[in-house]
């Protein structure tokens, strides 16, 4: 009987989870209704409890604690309690200061005050000495602690940015020092991706390998702002343990100041073909004109479409005004397909540079003059 009720209860809980009501369950099992009802009400309430997530800072703080422990485990040899006790005993047996009976009170006070002065002075010395420490050094924790305190006591946003930049440069220096010292460890790097290659990325001149074990969160593309927990191997190789990708940072020189951009809300989306190339990355320039029109056809070689740069990537649908070729994501730069034959580049317009690094180069005056004027329809549509 009891087992049967458990079965019925379980079935009703399932029914509730797929949207049935308590009443319909009770109608189905009228003999057990009295016992079922309170339990189903409780079940129904429990089912409605929302999933709670920790706050993002708490998630990050937890991860920092995890990484700190991994680092600690890797670099610090564990000391057993037995060894600690033996050491303490040795210190006690050789040190007269532990023998209370031989230390007069006044002398004790003098010693304590002297010790405090020494500690204060030595604290400053320790902080200074920690400045050049690198991961694995005893004083490295002091250095990072001082940095954290500096950040915490600074309220001016500009000053915080300056400090962040300074500490970022310090991480780069540490990595270089670790490589020279054949030291291994994990360092947190922040910066902007210069280049994404097949199995590595370049960030601020450092090459970081991205392996199958690397955890990549977000879209790893050129120009992405990233935070990387980087492992420095014995042979000096940098391996990404975890990469968090943030916003794309636009090269400010490429963004026009006075351009009057059309309102994206006024775009006639009926014009967009179903197979229009989706342009998820809000870069200012496309590296080649796009197959479908951009809001404003671009006159330069550009690298990723264009006028949607202020929108979230997920809000971007397609370019509207057709251009000659498809656009490609930065990660495709080294593997470009040939342009489709039906879209031949007009002979009076400069051809594409052969070197990919020149794709975002602006045209010179002569080349500019060869481009069709704004009021002339582009030849492919």
């Amino acid at each position, binding site marked *: 009987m009891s*087992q049967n*009720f*458990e*079965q019925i*209860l*379980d079935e009703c*809980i399932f029914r509730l*989870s797929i949207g049935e009501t308590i009443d319909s369950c009770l109608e189905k099992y009228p003999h057990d209704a*009295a016992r079922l*009802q*309170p*339990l189903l*009400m*409780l*079940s129904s*309430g*429990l*089912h*409605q*409890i*929302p*999933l*709670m*997530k*920790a*706050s993002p800072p*708490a*998630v990050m*703080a*937890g*991860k920092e*604690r*995890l*990484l700190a*422990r*991994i680092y600690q*485990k890797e670099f610090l040899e564990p000391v057993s309690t037995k060894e600690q006790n033996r050491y303490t005993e040795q210190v006690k047996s050789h040190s007269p200061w532990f023998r209370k009976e031989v230390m007069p009170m006044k002398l004790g006070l003098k010693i304590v005050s002297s010790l405090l002065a020494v500690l204060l002075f030595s604290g400053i010395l320790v902080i200074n000495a920690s400045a050049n420490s690198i991961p694995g050094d005893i004083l490295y924790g002091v250095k990072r602690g001082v940095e954290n305190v500096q950040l915490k006591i600074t309220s001016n946003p500009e000053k915080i940015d300056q400090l962040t930049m300074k500490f970022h440069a310090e991480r780069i220096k540490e990595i270089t020092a670790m490589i020279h010292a054949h030291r291994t460890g*994990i360092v947190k790097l922040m910066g902007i991706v210069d280049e994404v290659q097949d199995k590595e990325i370049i960030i601020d001149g450092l090459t970081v390998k991205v*392996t199958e*074990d*690397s*955890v990549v*969160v977000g879209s790893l593309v050129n120009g992405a702002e990233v935070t990387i*927990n980087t*492992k420095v191997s014995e042979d000096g190789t940098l391996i990404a*343990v*975890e990469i968090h990708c943030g916003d794309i940072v636009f090269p400010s020189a490429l963004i026009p100041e006075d351009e009057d951009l059309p309102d994206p809300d006024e775009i006639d989306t009926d014009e967009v073909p179903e197979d229009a190339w989706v342009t998820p990355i809000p870069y200012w320039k496309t590296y080649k004109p796009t197959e479908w029109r951009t809001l404003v056809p671009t006159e330069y070689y550009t690298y990723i479409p264009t006028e949607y740069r202020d929108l979230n990537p997920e809000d971007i649908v397609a370019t509207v005004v057709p251009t000659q070729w498809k656009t490609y994501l930065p990660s495709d730069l080294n593997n470009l397909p040939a342009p489709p034959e039906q879209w031949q580049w007009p002979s009076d317009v400069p051809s594409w540079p052969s070197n990919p690094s020149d794709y975002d180069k602006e045209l010179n005056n002569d080349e500019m003059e060869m481009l069709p004027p704004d009021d002339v329809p582009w030849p492919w549509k």
Partner: protein
Amino acid sequence: MNLNHNGLAKRAQQGDQGAFIEIYNLYQRTIYSYVLFRVGDSNVAEDLCAEVFVRMVDHIQTYTDQGRPFLSWLYTIAHHLVIDYYRKRKTEVWVALEDNYRDNDRQPHPLLIAEGNLDRKTLAHALQSLTDEQQQVIFLKFIEDMTNSDIARMLNKTEGAVKSLQHRALVSLRTSLQKEHAYEPEL
């Protein structure tokens, strides 16, 4: 929920730091949710949750794959931390617990919006009168929406035993809530 991530534990045991991070990314949410369910205070839950993963690093070599999901091992660590937490504050008087609430904690549970004014802390307190397994089955079934078969794997029990446990857990929880005068369903 995909429970087949035991390979990650093996990689972590071999010293693969990326595996630790992956484990954290995979299970942080569910462990936090579990701890919050048990303690009812988001500040405490965040702290204990972080500690779960620190303990994981410390004890990863003691983990043995006995066919149960790795997540159940993490739940065990979380469970012990929650027990320690309650043990430490055993002397505290359980009162209205209005201090240090976050807005989330203040919101009454949907559980009893209609019938009473139960908040997360009240539920966490009522759960203490349940056995460990009863608390787990409530969490896995109603919060994590796990199937009976997944719960059975997690708890190393048969599905029949899970149903039985579920029944006893609900009865105990209801009794406990009634003792708290927080739950007065209309019968």
